C-alpha cells in the first residue's frame, strides 16, 4: 500500500519506438486500454513505467493523477473503505474513510508490482473493477455507485502465469513485455545512473517531443476501416479465445497507433503495428500474402532499377561460375513437395501465455476459502478481512471499538451508568483469515513398482481423506520418466489435492532409476520443516509410501546427481531404511506403507514399514487379463 515518492534528477523518456513507452502512450489516449500487464519486467522498470504513465495521463487529462500500490497485504477494508476516526471532530467523531479503490471517480494509476503475489481481496477487486462500466460498493452501511476511473498497471513473470486465474488475467486488455527495455548496454546504464543520481532516486521526465505527440494524438480521431476490422479478426481467428476482449484490445490499440500517426483512419497496417507491439504472431496466411507482395515489389523494382539489374547480373554470373566448377546431375525422377512457408521473422513472445501453460493454480482460486469450524479460528494465516465474531478469539480490537462507537450516542441515552464505552457482544469483530491447512498428506510414490497392481484404488481413500480434511499435499515422485535429474526424486507441493498438477503428477510414467532413499530424504526434510520450523500450522501428517523398497540409487549419488562408479549392491536399499528410521523419530506422523506385493524381494516393503514404524496395507494385484500385454 506504500505510495512511492520519487525525487532527484530527471531522465527524459525520448524513445517512442520502445514498445513499453509506445504501449503506455496508446493506453493514455485510449481509456479502454487502461489495464496494462507487463510481463517479466524488473521492479525498477515497472516503477519507471508507472511514473511515466502518471505523467502521460496528467498531461492529457490536465488533472493531477496519483498512483496507488497494491500488494499481498491488502484487505477488503483497506481496499473498499471503513469507518475511521474523524480528522475534523465537529458533529461526529467518525467518518467513512474511502479505501484505496473505493468510491472515487478521480483518475488514479493502480500499480500491482507482482500480480502473482496479490492478496485475495485485491484479486477479487480487480475482477469487479477492471473493464467494468460501473463500480458498486455496498459495505458496512455505506452505499455507492460510480464510474470507475482507475488505470491498472501490473507486473507478472511469465513463469507465474500458470498459478494465476485466467479470469483475472483476461481483465488486462493490453499486454506488453518488460524485457525489451532491459536489452541495453548495462555498463552504460550503470555509468549513467551513477553520473545522474546522487541520492539513489530519480525522476523520469517526458521529453517535449513525446508530450507534443501525446497532446496531438489525444485530440485526434481515427475511425476503424473495414480492412482493419478484418485484419484484427484474422490475427485472433485461431486462438481459443471465446470472447471479444482481445480483438477489441487489438483494434483499439491500432486505433491509438493511427492517432499517433495523425491519420483519421485506422488501416490494416496499424493493426499489424499494434500486433507487433504486443507480440502477436502474424497468421501464416497474412505472412504468405505479405511475402508475395514483397516479392512483386522487388520484381518491379528490378525492372526499373538499373543498379539492381547490374547487381542481379553479377549474382547470376557468379552463380553460373559456381555451377561451372561444381557439376550437378539431374535426378532420374522428380517429386513435388507441398510448398511450406518459412518464417523468417524472429519469434515473438505470446501476449496470452495463459492459453498455452498448464493450469497449476488452486481450484476456484478467487473464492474466499471455505471454513471447517465457523466458531473458532486458529489466529494464523494472512488477514483478508473483518467479520462479526461470536467467540472472543482473534478479536480485531480497532474494528470492534469502531463498531461499538456507532451506537454510543444511542446507548448512553438508555443506559444510566457513566461508563465512557458501552460494548455489546454484537460489536465484537474478528479477523477473517485465509485458511492455512492443519493437516498434510505426504505421498512418496515409487513409479517403478506400479505395474500390475491396483494402486490407484488403494490410494484413492487417502486422497479422499486429504480432500475431506482440506489437507495440503506433498507428492514425492520417485523414479519417473522424462526428468532432467533421474537420480533424484522430485517434490510437488500444493494447498489441496484439487490442484491440477497433483493429478498430472500422479499420472507420470515410470523411469529407470529408483532413488527411493532420496525420496524418503525429501519427505524427511519436508516433515521436519512443516512440523518443527517457525509458526507452522501443520498439526497432523499422514505419510503414505507406495514402494517395493527396491531403491537402486545410493543417497549420496542422488544428492550429487552422479552416477555410481561401482556396483551399488544394497546401498540404495540400506540408505532408504536408514532415512526411514529417522522419519520414525518424528512425532505427529502417521505412516502407512502400501505394499505392491512384488514377486521378488517380498520382504523389502515389510522391512521398510518396520523401519518407519508404519502400518502396512497390501495392494491387490491386477488379474492377468487386466494387464495390458505389449
Amino acid at each position, binding site marked *: 500500500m506504500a505510495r512511492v515518492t520519487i525525487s532527484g534528477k530527471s531522465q527524459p523518456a525520448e524513445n517512442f519506438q520502445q514498445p513499453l513507452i509506445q504501449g503506455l502512450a496508446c493506453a493514455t489516449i485510449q481509456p479502454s486500454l487502461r489495464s496494462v500487464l507487463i510481463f517479466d519486467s524488473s521492479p525498477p522498470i515497472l516503477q519507471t513505467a508507472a511514473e511515466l504513465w502518471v505523467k502521460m495521463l496528467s498531461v492529457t487529462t490536465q488533472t493531477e493523477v496519483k498512483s496507488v500500490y497494491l500488494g499481498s497485504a491488502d484487505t477488503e477494508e483497506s481496499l473498499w473503505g471503513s469507518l475511521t476516526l474523524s480528522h475534523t471532530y465537529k458533529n461526529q467523531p467518525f467518518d467513512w474513510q474511502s479505501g484505496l479503490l473505493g468510491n472515487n471517480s478521480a483518475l488514479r494509476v493502480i500499480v500491482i508490482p507482482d500480480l502473482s503475489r496479490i492478496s485475495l481481496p485485491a484479486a*477479487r477487486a480487480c475482477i469487479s473493477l477492471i473493464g467494468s462500466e460501473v463500480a458498486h460498493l*455496498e459495505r458496512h452501511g455505506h452505499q455507492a455507485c460510480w464510474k470507475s476511473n482507475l488505470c491498472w498497471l501490473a507486473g507478472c513473470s511469465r513463469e507465474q502465469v500458470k498459478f494465476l486465474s485466467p479470469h483475472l488475467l483476461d481483465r488486462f486488455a493490453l499486454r506488453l513485455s518488460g524485457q525489451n527495455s532491459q536489452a541495453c548496454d548495462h555498463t552504460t546504464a550503470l555509468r549513467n545512473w551513477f553520473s545522474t543520481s546522487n541520492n539513489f532516486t530519480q525522476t523520469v521526465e517526458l521529453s517535449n517531443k513525446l508530450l507534443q505527440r501525446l497532446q496531438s494524438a489525444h485530440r485526434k480521431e481515427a475511425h476503424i476501416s473495414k480492412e482493419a476490422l478484418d485484419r484484427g479478426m484474422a490475427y485472433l481467428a485461431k486462438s481459443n479465445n471465446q470472447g*471479444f*476482449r482481445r480483438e477489441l484490445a487489438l483494434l483499439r490499440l491500432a486505433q491509438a497507433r493511427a492517432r499517433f500517426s495523425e491519420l483519421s483512419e485506422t488501416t490494416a497496417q496499424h493493426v499489424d503495428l499494434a500486433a507487433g507491439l504486443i507480440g502477436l504472431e502474424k497468421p501464416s496466411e497474412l505472412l504468405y500474402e505479405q511475402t508475395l507482395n514483397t516479392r512483386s515489389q522487388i520484381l518491379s523494382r528490378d525492372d526499373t532499377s538499373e543498379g539492381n539489374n547490374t547487381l542481379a547480373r553479377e549474382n547470376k554470373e557468379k552463380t553460373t561460375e559456381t555451377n561451372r566448377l561444381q557439376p550437378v546431375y539431374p535426378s532420374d525422377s522428380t517429386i513435388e513437395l507441398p510448398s511450406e512457408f518459412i518464417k523468417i521473422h524472429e519469434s515473438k513472445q505470446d501476449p496470452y501465455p495463459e492459453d498455452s501453460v498448464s493450469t497449476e493454480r488452486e481450484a476456484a482460486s478467487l473464492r474466499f476459502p471455505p471454513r471447517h469450524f465457523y466458531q473458532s479460528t486458529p489466529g494464523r494465516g494472512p488477514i483478508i478481512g473483518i467479520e462479526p465474531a461470536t467467540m472472543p478469539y482473534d478479536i480485531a480490537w480497532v474494528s470492534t471499538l469502531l463498531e461499538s462507537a456507532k*451506537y454510543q450516542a444511542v446507548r448512553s441515552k438508555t443506559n444510566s451508568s457513566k461508563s465512557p464505552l458501552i460494548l455489546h457482544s454484537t460489536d465484537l469483530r474478528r479477523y477473517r483469515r485465509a485458511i492455512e491447512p492443519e493437516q498434510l498428506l505426504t505421498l512418496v510414490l515409487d513409479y517403478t513398482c506400479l505395474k500390475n497392481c491396483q494402486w490407484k484404488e488403494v490410494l484413492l481413500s487417502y486422497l479422499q481423506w486429504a480432500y475431506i480434511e482440506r489437507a495440503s499435499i506433498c507428492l514425492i515422485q520417485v523414479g519417473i520418466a522424462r526428468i532432467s535429474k533421474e537420480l533424484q526424486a522430485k517434490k510437488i507441493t500444493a494447498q489441496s489435492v484439487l490442484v491440477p498438477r497433483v493429478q498430472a503428477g500422479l499420472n507420470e510414467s515410470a523411469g529407470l532409476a529408483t532413488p527411493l532413499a532420496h525420496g524418503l530424504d525429501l519427505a524427511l526434510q519436508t516433515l521436519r520443516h512443516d512440523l518443527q520450523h517457525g509458526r507452522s500450522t501443520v498439526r497432523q501428517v499422514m505419510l503414505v509410501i507406495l514402494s517395493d523398497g527396491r531403491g537402486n540409487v545410493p543417497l549420496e549419488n542422488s544428492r550429487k546427481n552422479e552416477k555410481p562408479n561401482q556396483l551399488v549392491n544394497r546401498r540404495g536399499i540400506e540408505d532408504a531404511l536408514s532415512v526411514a528410521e529417522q522419519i520414525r523419530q518424528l512425532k505427529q506422523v502417521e505412516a502407512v506403507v502400501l505394499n505392491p506385493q512384488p514377486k521378488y524381494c517380498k520382504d523389502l516393503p515389510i522391512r521398510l514399514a518396520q523401519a518407519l514404524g508404519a502400518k502396512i496395507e497390501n495392494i491387490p494385484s491386477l488379474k492377468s487379463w487386466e494387464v495390458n500385454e505389449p
Partner: protein
Amino acid sequence: MAKATPKTVPTTIPVLPYSLIVGQESLKLALELAYIMPRLGGVLLSGHRGTGKSTAVRAFAQMVYNGELPVTLPINATEDRVIGGWDIKEMLQKNPKWKDGLLLEARNKLLYVDEINLLDDHIVNIILDVTATGKLVVARDGQSESCDVPFTLVGTMNPEEGGLRPQLLDRFGLMVNVTTGSDSINRLQILKNVLTFDDEWTKRERGEKSVFLDQADKADRQLVRQLQGAQKRFRQVNVDAVLPLCVALATEFEVEGNRGERVLAIAARAYAAKENQPEATAKHVAVVASLALQHRRPAMAQSNEAIWTDEDDDLVHQVIEGG
C-alpha cells in the same frame, strides 16, 4: 422497514444499448421472458470471460427501467447492506433510523449479482432463504420484521472459477450457457458496434448529436413497448395443451422436483405472449426447454457448466413427436 427508495444511478455511464447486442439469442430471450413474467424466478448467465454477459444485463436493465442501471449486489457486499441495517450517520446523530438493504431496493425489479459464484457463502445463504420463501425476515440489531420481496434475480458467472450450489442453481428459473458464435459475420458486426459505440459516446459526451445512438435508443424503446405488450397478454395465453409435454420433458431429462416443469410451462407461455400467439405450442416449449431444464439435470452436480447438446435437442423433438 422504510419503503425502498430508488437508488440514484449516474446516467453518464456508457453502456452499450440493448438493441446493439448482436447474436446471443438465448441470453436475450431469457432476460426478456423473465421481464414478461417475473415469477419465472430469475436468470443465470454462465459463460466464459469476455462473452458480454454483464454488458447484456446492464443494457437490458437500462432499457426497461428508463435508463437506470439494475440494483447490483457486488461481491464486496456485507450482510447489513444486503438485508438492511441501522443508518450509521443517523445513529451518530442520536437518531436511530433503519436503512433498507439491496433485497428491498430490488423489490419488483431486477437484482443483479455479478460473479455470483464468487459471492461469500453467508450472503448466498441469505439470498437462498429469501428466494425460497419470497419473504425477507430481519431479526438482528434489535430489529424484527418480515416483508414480501418479489424480485427477479439475475446472476452472471464464469464457470472457470467454480460452480454454484445445487440449491442456488435451482432457484434460477432459467439458465443460459453463454457462448460466442464462430460466425465471422456476426463477430465482425459485434466488433463494429462496440467500436462505433465508443466513438459515438465520445461525441455525445461532447454535446454533439449521434444518429447512431439515437437510432439504437429508438429501437430499444420499441422493444420495451413490445415486451410490455407481452406482459399484458401473458394471462390470456392458453398453456393447457402443452402441460403434459412439460411433464414428459422433465421426466425424460430426470429433472428433480417439480420446479423444472412449472418453469418450463411458464417460460413457454411467456414466449408465446412475446410472439403474440393466443396459445403456447410444442414449438414454444422446444425453444425454451434448454433454458428451463439444463441446470436441473443430475449431471450438473458433477460439473460447473451446463451442457446442452444437439442430442438433447433431438431428444426434445422425439418427446414432442412421441407425445
